């Protein structure tokens, strides 16, 4: 325990991160090791100095499985692994230009990346069109976050957007 708390000290504002993300200190340590491993130049940043450790952890925190019987003390702020935050994360993956709406073009880009060569462009387009039709409630030809959330109402996001983090 002593060693872990001592190495915890090298993580910048560890306590704050733990509060914000819900990771345990063991998780955090492990992630920190991973971060250092990814950060080959030891600059404390990834991807051309855009991602530092705390944002790294914050992003990963979206994928922490929701714990059922967590005591309610953490309710003053929403943890990143809540349903809404997970959805928001997924939404942002689509929303490439960050305008709060998934347009057809954005959807098409994601589809193109995912479906690969098997499907023709026309089919892709009709798929994108159809997907938008399904979710688009206010008929503005784009999916807003609320619409996105609503159309994925029945999906078990907790399961589908979680990975088991090793301790």
């Amino acid at each position, binding site marked *: 325990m002593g060693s872990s708390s001592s190495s915890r000290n090298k993580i910048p504002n560890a306590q704050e991160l733990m509060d914000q993300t819900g990771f345990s200190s063991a998780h955090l340590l492990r992630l920190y090791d*991973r971060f250092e491993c*990814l950060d080959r130049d030891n600059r404390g940043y990834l991807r051309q100095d855009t991602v530092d450790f705390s944002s790294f952890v914050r992003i990963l925190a979206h994928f922490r499985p929701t714990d059922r019987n967590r005591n309610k003390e953490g309710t003053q702020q929403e943890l990143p692994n809540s349903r809404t935050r997970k959805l928001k994360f997924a939404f942002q993956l689509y929303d490439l230009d960050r305008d709060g709406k998934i347009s057809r073009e954005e959807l098409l880009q994601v*589809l193109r990346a*995912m479906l690969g060569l098997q499907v023709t462009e026309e089919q892709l*387009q*009709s*798929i994108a069109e159809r*997907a938008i039709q399904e979710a688009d409630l206010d008929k503005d030809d784009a999916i807003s976050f609320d619409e996105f959330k609503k159309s994925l109402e029945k999906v078990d996001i907790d399961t589908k957007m979680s*990975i*088991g983090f090793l301790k």
Partner: protein
Amino acid sequence: MATLWRFTLFLCMLLMACGGLSLASEEAETRNTQTETGTGSSSNTTGGGGHEAAPITTLPIVTWKWHHISVQYLVALWILVCWLCKLIIEANHSVTNYIPESALLICSGFILGGMIWGADKMQTFSLSPTVFFYFLLPQIILDSGYHMPNKLFFTNLGAILIHAVIGTCWNAASLGLSLWGCHMGGAMGDLDIGLLQYLLFGSLMAAVDPVAVLAVFDQVHVNEVLFIIVFGESLLNDGVTVVLFNVFDAFVSLGGGRINAAEIVKGIVSFFVVAFGGSLVGIAFGILIALLTRCTKNIQIIEPGFIFVMGYLSYLTAEMLSLSAILSTTFCGVLCQKYVRANMDESSVQTVKYAMKVFANGSETIIFVFLGISAIDKVIWVWNTGFILLTLLFIFVYRFIGVFFLQWILNRYRLVPIELIDMVIMSYGGLRGAVAYGLAVLLDENKIKEKNLMICTTLIVVYFTVILQGITMKPLVMWLKVKRAEVTEVSLLEKMTNKMFNHTLVAIEDISGQIGDNYFRSKWRHFEEKWMTPLLMKPSARKKQDEVFDVFHQLNLKDAMEYVTEGERSGSLEFVRNDSAILDFKKKLESEYTEVLPDIPPYMINNHGAMFTMGRDPIPSVSLEMHEQTMKAMREAEAVDAHHLLDQHLYKSRKQYRHGFSRSDFKINRDEKEVQEIFQRTMRNRLESFKSAKMGVSPPKTIVKHSKKEQQEKIPNGKSMSKTKLCHSGDEDFEFSEGDSASGYDSSYPSFSMRATYRPGAGIENPAFMPDLDPMDLLQIPPWLAESELDSSMVALSHRAQVGLPRTPSNLRRLAPLRISTRSTDSFTLENIPDTQQMDSDQLPPPPPPRPPRDDGYV
């Protein structure tokens, strides 16, 4: 009233059973004579019996040959009786809502058994292990494997395997040891059962029966994770149980004295060899099936049969190699399903699906009824209160302990732990069934003195679990508020997002530096895509492998179906004609596209637009509403118009029912040239309308909607050639006649001159498709009279119409708007439509005024 109804039902059942019985008792005698003469009761040896009869003195005209067919006849009769039982049970849902069908079937088995007993004073029918294991079980297992939700199964495979292997061993060992302990403690009085026999008994009781489980859980829609764990476990642990049973059976035969450490090790090794060997045989057969279905294109009719034959062979092969047949068939089904579905024709896939359900459900019914019948037999009822009650208690308790303990361990590694109440249901769902009974009957009486006690106990356990636990399962699920399965509609966005999640999770796992489920799953997918799919799947089928595309395809199919249903419900497909919504959309798209792809001709854009509109759910319903008011007025007019058009442009189809009696080709009038011809016409018309559009006429909207329709049709047709010509040709007719109308109108031909101008332009090469090669040249009759001619079968309206409906004018009139929808706002529409129906061909009405040129409204 309800009681009366139920009483009548009961009476019916009784009567029916008596009907079965009168023959059954007759059979019983033959059965007796057979057994007396030393022939096996289940094997068919009566075949040659008739020929050895006394030499005949004169030629008999008719002879009574019961012995020839007795066995076959009885088999068929029993199947019928069992299925009738199911029919009666399912006739009244107020009962099946509370009591599961399996329990009711067992009860009807009691009644049938009672009647046989009353007639014969002995039980002449019972479920023999041979029949059960070789004729009733395989199709159930194959069905379960083939319809296994693969992804769910493999995601939870770890949990399923642990429950199936360790849980079953635990159940067997704990039950055997505890009973032995109680026996030693003197709880059961004087019984000649040793420790090994107890273990053998424990192993046969350990199997949770997939048939029983499925029968109960099917009616209680619990959440899918819970379901797959219980069901997967029950399926796999059957295999495990049979293996365990064989090992212990061998131990019993060896006798206690000769069992040493080496033998035990051999037993364990054989356990794994049998289980994994069986699975391997299954996998091999699964691959074989997949390979076979790759090249069955030319024998589509018997293509579905391969699945059944190969599945059965996988069962028998494993049995032959003394490997686990159940595991073999399960994995065969699980493995081949994906490739079979992709490789085979759509209709064959459907055939496999339903035929498998028929076999599985049928034999399930038979099994339950016979489980009931078997009970009514004095011979097997050996009562030993201690043994029976303790068995029941131990089974129940140890099942709970085992499930809770194993799941508690598993939960530590699960992302989403199984909740406590789910575990309760898992434990409570440990229903025993026919497998246990079948194994109990297999016991060797010479080695196990108390065989009948064991059979009797097994039966009681089966009844207890299936009937009591089955009945209480539903209330329990309600009461514990177990998470139920949600009925979800597939949505494209959802599928897309799921797929994206999969990708994201793999990436995140990679970034955070751990190797988890997602990593392996993606590796497996890569492997599959790289090696398995090219090997086992037709190249043409690979495209559909994409989940998102598949869902898209399904949704489109569903839409198209709804579209038609909706249209037919409101009496017409006229709502197709609502173009305003489509047009708006199309316009927008058009502009969009001309920006992006300026060199694409407008009609292509129309195509795109149509393709997109197809995704627009609201359009059909909305336009339907909008159109409802005008519909009535329009329909009449349109009927005339439509007939006129149809008559002009439909070619005469001569070869309907060409293959009516062919065994190998069930398509009606599939003619390549015909299709080609239609295609040519359509294309030409499109080009024409395109030209006219260029010349300033607005693009023909009918083409937009028509290609929309076509798009919807295209996918199923492209995917499978299975669509019978019936629908196929019907749609083609619709398509091209519409194309004609579009071109005709937009180039502002007067409608009746269309015929004359049409033909040279249309370039019909094949005289078989000339619209009017008939001796009674239609040209002689004014075209507007054509609808009066329709019932004289001059013109093929469409195959569907000809096949499906009596050719009465009123029918055709109703049908016409379904087939074709034109923009019929012209004055041709006549006020004398009622007349046209009764008109005879010699009673010609005055020719209607020529159609006014259309372009005034559209230019």
